[in-house]
């Protein structure tokens, strides 16, 4: 017998008083060796920046492991690595998370390319949307990734792959319309 779950409601326009943390963008401690910034802009169906949104990220460590009881392999000790990032968008829709690039993650469907799970929250969204960030410097792993491989359209797949940037990667999130990001039913 399973109990019915509690429904989602929007974060509304005032999430900025409650959810941001001073260290939120730092999924890895500032200055970690190999640290990268993942920066992007969140836009709506008119291409306008969303200035009242929140982006959260969750990912494996560089060895592809999770510090969590459900990862039977256990995490490699890695001080300062949280694996979770949280960044509100600014007035221009910009967000940024500082992290370490994850390693490939095994699954029964095959080895998954390095990826980061992303939740997007905003006023006007009655539930979060979920997407994934993949990396441009992993063409072979991406080609073999079971989740990317399930998306037939090459243009749609491309919305999940970040672009190289000076201090890391660029990953824009388009909620709707031209170049709409692929979102997942999770």
């Amino acid at each position: 017998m399973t109990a019915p779950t509690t429904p989602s409601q929007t974060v509304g326009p005032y999430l900025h008083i409650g959810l941001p943390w001073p260290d939120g963008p730092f999924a890895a401690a500032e200055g970690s060796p190999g640290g990268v910034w993942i920066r992007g802009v969140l836009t709506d169906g008119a291409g306008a920046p969303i200035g009242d949104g929140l982006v959260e990220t969750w990912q494996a460590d560089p060895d592809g492991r999770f510090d969590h009881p459900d990862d039977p392999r256990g995490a490699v000790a890695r001080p300062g690595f949280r694996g979770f990032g949280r960044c509100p968008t600014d007035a221009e829709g910009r967000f940024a998370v500082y992290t370490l690039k994850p390693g490939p993650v095994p699954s029964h469907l095959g080895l998954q390319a390095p990826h980061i799970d992303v939740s997007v929250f905003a006023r006007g969204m009655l539930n979060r949307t979920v997407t994934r960030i993949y990396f441009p410097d992993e063409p072979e792993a991406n080609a073999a990734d079971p989740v990317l491989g399930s998306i037939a359209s090459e243009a749609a797949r491309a919305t999940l792959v970040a672009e190289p940037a000076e201090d890391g990667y660029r990953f824009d999130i388009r909620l709707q319309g031209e170049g709409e990001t692929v979102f997942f039913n999770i």
Partner: protein
Amino acid sequence: MSEPLTPEAPAAPPPVLGYLRDREVHPPLDYPGYRSTALRHPRRRLKVLPHLLTEVTGPLLGEDRIGELDNDLTRQHDGEPQGQRIIVHGQVRDGDGAPVPHTLIEIWQANAGGRYRHTGDNWPSPLDPNFTGVGRTLTDDQGRYRFTTIRPGAYPWRNHDNAWRPAHIHFSLFGRAFTQRLVTQMYFPGDPLFFQDPMWNSIPDPDARERLVARFDYGSTEEEWALAYEWDIVLRGRESTVFEDEIALEDDDE
């Protein structure tokens, strides 16, 4: 501790137990009654994501995220805030009825007059210098939580003519897995504003709407101090078996 890492790709592990899918419980992303959804929902069909390691794990945030007075929103300033002091408490469980222990809950809300301490909230109701409206706590080992706060007021907004939000407290929960993440709102029993509220009405099943309403809890009131409300939160439960057909990746049908 962990084994040394080897460069060879490991053998494919067995499937992990996923979480029950519950999309039908939640509001649709496209809901015309809430005008701001118009440009903020994907038009493409959501792609089913199998629950793999990234989805069944999640951040297990601890005491380091919590300050001493974070669960008492009435004691965060030199003076006491205006309004009706209330206790809001309850239990976080998963769909199998198991408590969700040691999980972070974050709340934010308007003050007694319905005004948020946010630069974007400028309607003519005063700020309270003694109320920020932000709280955090961890559930205990039985999944229980407790906040002391002020009953928030209703406030107007511009979604439709004479639109008012029912009084509510925003809740953010992590659970134990990325899949369990939930942001929602707690309402108060008998609120006369539900009928015209698109957030409330966006939940397809009327019974599910009621699950957002706290219960007045006379037994937990504190004499000559605070009224009390009890609100339990249910996060997604786990699949009891691995359903191979559900976790297989479907062909894209765009």
